[in-house]
């Protein structure tokens, strides 16, 4: 009947042993994304022709094929495509980060409140969510982008408006199951008020699937942003934006393939990296 009061065994806490368990796919995705982020941040310094990221024109050098001077060739007005792809990474990343931050914050807060509160609060929040989900996302973005002036900000607002309901749904379903767990009852038994329970006890335990979804969605946001710009509703000249570059180069595809191919590849690789990271994280969680 004696309870051992002895010292606790010491814990292993090597950061490397933690990393060993992480999926290779996730690491590959993270590394790739890291490279893209670095490219975006240091674009003005690593781009061979930094002024080509903006409004510079060199009519005499228009549509040169890839060469030692211009690895990715030049576009219709003689700008270096490599430089513009690097600067385009900045635009894309700003859009992705902003959209995920806005829609993630709004969606998660509404979702965790709906999931914990239940009852009519949940009903109201979920019905509003359903209304937003009832519109085809691209169509709603298009409508918004038409009403507002075409710009990068418009793209961010338009995509965020269609993106948050997914996080609300996901968070609400996870939060409602977290809300039934013992420690939530325990917190209530200790006299913790509801808002603190929601944000300190339910939220941190409901966040993991949302983080996975966020990383998976990075690719989707890039594609949607590219689509909006491609349709002329997003970034406009002379901003370097991948979707816009594809739109401007597509007519030249048969004669000057490089103008459209390299920004297209950039979109593909970035979306792919986000998916790899997200899938890797999901696989890690499922274990």
């Amino acid at each position, binding site marked *: 009947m004696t309870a051992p009061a002895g010292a606790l065994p010491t814990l292993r806490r090597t950061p490397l042993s933690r990393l060993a368990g992480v999926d290779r796919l996730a690491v590959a995705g993270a590394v790739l994304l890291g490279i893209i982020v670095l490219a975006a941040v240091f674009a003005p310094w690593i781009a061979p022709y930094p002024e080509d990221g903006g409004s510079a024109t060199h009519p005499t050098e228009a549509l040169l094929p890839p060469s030692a001077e211009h690895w990715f060739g030049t576009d219709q007005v003689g700008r270096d495509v490599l430089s513009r792809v690097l600067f385009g990474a900045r635009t894309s990343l700003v859009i992705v980060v902003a959209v995920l931050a806005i829609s993630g914050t709004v969606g998660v807060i509404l979702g965790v409140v709906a999931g914990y509160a239940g009852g009519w609060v949940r009903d109201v929040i979920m019905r509003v969510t359903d209304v937003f989900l009832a519109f085809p996302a691209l169509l709603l973005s298009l409508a918004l982008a038409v009403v507002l002036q075409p710009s990068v900000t418009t793209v961010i607002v338009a995509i965020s408006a269609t993106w948050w309901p997914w996080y609300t749904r996901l968070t609400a379903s996870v939060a409602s199951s977290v809300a039934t767990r013992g420690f939530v009852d325990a917190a209530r038994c200790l*006299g*913790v008020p509801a808002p603190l329970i929601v944000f300190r006890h339910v939220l941190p335990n409901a966040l993991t699937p949302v983080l996975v979804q966020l990383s998976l969605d990075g690719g989707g946001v890039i594609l949607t942003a590219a689509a909006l710009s491609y349709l002329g509703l997003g970034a406009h000249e002379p901003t370097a934006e991948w979707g816009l570059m594809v739109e401007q180069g597509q007519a030249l595809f048969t004669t000057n393939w490089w103008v459209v191919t390299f920004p297209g590849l950039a979109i593909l690789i970035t979306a792919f990296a986000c998916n790899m990271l997200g899938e890797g994280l999901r696989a890690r969680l499922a274990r």
Partner: protein
Amino acid sequence: MSDALISVRDLQVRIGDRVIATVPELDVARGECVAIVGESGSGKTTTLLAILGLLEGAAVTGSITVAGVDVLAAGPAELRRIRGSTVALVLQSPQSALNPTMRLGTLMRRALARHGVKGDEARARAERALADVLLPPEVLRRYPHQVSGGQAQRFAIALALALGAEVLLADEPTSALDVTVQAEVVAVLRRLHEERGLAVLLVSHDLALVSSIADRVVVMKDGAVVESGPAAGVFARPREQYTKDLIAAVPRLPGHSAEVQA
């Protein structure tokens, strides 16, 4: 009434048309240990949750008084005040009762701060409470998954002690633990009850635990109280057939007499 920390009269809990628990009378005096026993679904846990005012979606009638506060009439702020600092709950499954994203120390510090205890006073209280349940102070640096079930359960008790709870509501505090670890928790509970005069309202179907610690026993079946009285009396001379069945159901090892000591 004046001496009763918990006083329940004519309690009835209904969900829709179904009565799920009826308790005509239940008192827990200061320093007393009362056990509610009965099979699963007999309304034990429901009664416990009703006392804390934590039943949702159920109609609760009758009167429940905890430390002079009418639980059924009290507002949320008053309920929050008595929860923790007067009554504290120890749950069946200790590890799920602790937020997995919080270190135990953070949990302890925040719980104390919530009841207005901060700084050195909080640290002193936490250390004293941990010593009372025979846990080393290092557990405060651990996350819940880094301690054993028994340690987690003793931490939950320590949390209640640190908050100055006068009565501990324990919902099957040992049934999720393995036998050797159960002994740790029982020993701690018994010592706190006997030496500190901590009042305990214990819900359990572990008659060995109940007979070793309880002063009085309430036997419930199908949502109603079938028998109650001093523990020794109920176990030595059960009046109801159901109580006899419960006692008879306790497994015995060959060569040992009854594990339930009257």
